[in-house]
């Protein structure tokens, strides 16, 4: 028995070691191993409401009927997803538009392939907003001058959006003090007065609302009408080597997005399969919009604002980035 165990241990070690050795060729297409006409693709996602169409599309067989098997890998954020896609560990990833443009401006070879999620375009009814605590004296984005405002990542899409809201309200965005805080920590920080306002998205937005917090601006709406907030992307290398897989992924995702947009109840139920959002919160969550196509004009507006705020080393080439 003991010898058997030892043998197994050594065997496992060798398998692991040889698997390590073979990872050198991870750039090649055989990672998305195909067997019997089905290609398995790994998609790096953040476990949030925005990616629900992928889960729904997989459940409905939109990917399966195109010979794709989706394997979702959850990560905390872009820190793990972008390197994962670029190195070929994932074939596709989910990222916000500003991060993709920043990557492109730094010559990271990413290519957006399918629409991800969009703002609802309705002021006061979007899935992200600048919020203040109950009874706060701040009533408009202009009041944020000299105040502490939390965003999830400095120098990224939400900072751009808050700056634009302040600008539109007639204030000076350079006087806003931005602090970095994870979305999930914002409701508590707001409540305890550590910050004066927070740029939150769902489901933290629903939590803030349930505490009596109020919205003073719908920043994603202020950036552009029907802003394309996030997209699915791949590496340029993978796109060139596997145009067919990319095309099938695009078609299946477009179908999934359209289906999700038309069936919000099914979206809410699929969300419970990969998040732990409590039912009471989920019922009050504002869903994003899922148009099948990205809105280029809105992305251009986002790019212009990002450039103005110095997010990019050099202006990203949208023709190269977008599908």
């Amino acid at each position: 028995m003991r010898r058997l165990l030892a043998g197994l241990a050594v065997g496992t070690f060798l398998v692991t070691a040889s698997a390590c050795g073979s990872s050198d060729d991870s750039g090649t297409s055989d990672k998305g191993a195909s067997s019997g006409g089905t290609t398995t693709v790994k998609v790096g996602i953040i476990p949030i409401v925005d990616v629900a169409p992928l889960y729904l599309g997989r459940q409905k067989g939109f990917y399966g009927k195109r010979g794709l098997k989706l394997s979702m890998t959850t990560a905390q954020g872009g820190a793990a997803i972008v390197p994962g896609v670029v190195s070929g560990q994932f074939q596709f990833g989910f990222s916000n538009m500003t991060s993709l443009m920043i990557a492109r401006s730094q010559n990271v070879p990413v290519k957006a392939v399918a629409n991800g999620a969009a703002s609802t375009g309705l002021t006061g009814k979007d899935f992200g907003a600048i919020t203040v605590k109950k009874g706060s004296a701040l009533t408009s984005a202009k009041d944020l001058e000299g105040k502490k405002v939390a965003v999830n990542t400095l120098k990224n899409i939400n900072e751009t959006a808050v700056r634009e809201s302040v600008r539109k309200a007639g204030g000076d965005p350079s006087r806003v003090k931005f602090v970095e805080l994870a979305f999930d920590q914002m409701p508590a920080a707001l409540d305890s007065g550590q910050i004066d306002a927070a740029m939150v998205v769902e489901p933290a937005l629903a939590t803030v609302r349930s505490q009596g917090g109020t919205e003073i601006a719908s920043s994603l709406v202020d950036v552009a009408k029907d802003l394309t907030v996030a997209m699915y992307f791949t590496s340029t290398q993978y796109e060139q080597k596997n145009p067919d897989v990319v095309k099938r992924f695009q078609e299946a995702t477009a179908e999934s997005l359209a289906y999700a947009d038309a069936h919000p109840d099914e979206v809410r139920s699929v969300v419970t399969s990969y998040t732990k959002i409590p039912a009471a919160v989920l019922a009050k969550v504002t869903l994003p919009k899922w148009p099948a196509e990205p809105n280029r004009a809105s992305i251009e507006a986002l790019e212009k604002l990002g450039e103005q705020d110095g997010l990019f080393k050099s202006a990203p080439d949208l023709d190269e980035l977008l599908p």
Partner: protein
Amino acid sequence: MRGANAALGTAGLAAFLALGEAAPRLGLVKAAYFPPTSRIADALGQEATDGAFWTALGDTLTGWALGLVTAVVAGVVVGLVVSVVPYLREATASTIEFLRPIPSVALIPLAVLLYGTELRSVLLLVVYASFWQILVQVLYGVRDVDPVAEETARSYGLGPWARTRHVLWPTALPYVMTGVRLAAAVALILAVTAELVIGAPGLGARIAVAQSSQAVPDLYALVVVTGLLGLLINVGARAVERRALAWHQSVRGEVAV
């Protein structure tokens, strides 16, 4: 003596749990962000009925165990070789001191580039962090060898292997065991952290999902589980240490008194 210790330990824990229940109920902290003990216990019960929770626990323990074993073996072998060969010791000292303080977490982007969000990226971080704990203890342990004992062994004609076996190893073992105990705790912390940040399957990834889902009691329930794991690992490591060093003064002394 033992019974009294256990009683005191239990009383301490009970007081802590009572405080956790009372603080939110008395309004000292907001129940929404710091749920009372009973609600956390409730969420813990829910978790225990979920198969995915046990899979996650298994994933975390796998990463921890594989990482720890690799780090212990590598640390002991490298440590012995480096300290036995004088030139090697001089040559590696500054490199070790340079690499040791690098936080494992800083290697996360590298881990993802190499291995994606799989077990192997967790292992990279776990092994990196716990390897140094072992290595440094082995180096200290070997340095502690009594020169008189070493010379005596030499004059009795013991070869290098026998000297390692009978002089060096017994001197170094208490140090190695301390290293193992430290490394066991560090390995757990790194396994959970890696899962939390990278998203590799395990308790950490589950904590991350609960966090971003605003599921506060679930979040605390999972944190409690990692705390319990840490406690068990420490108790286990101490038991192993006592066994391995049963012959050693430090352990024998306790029993005799």
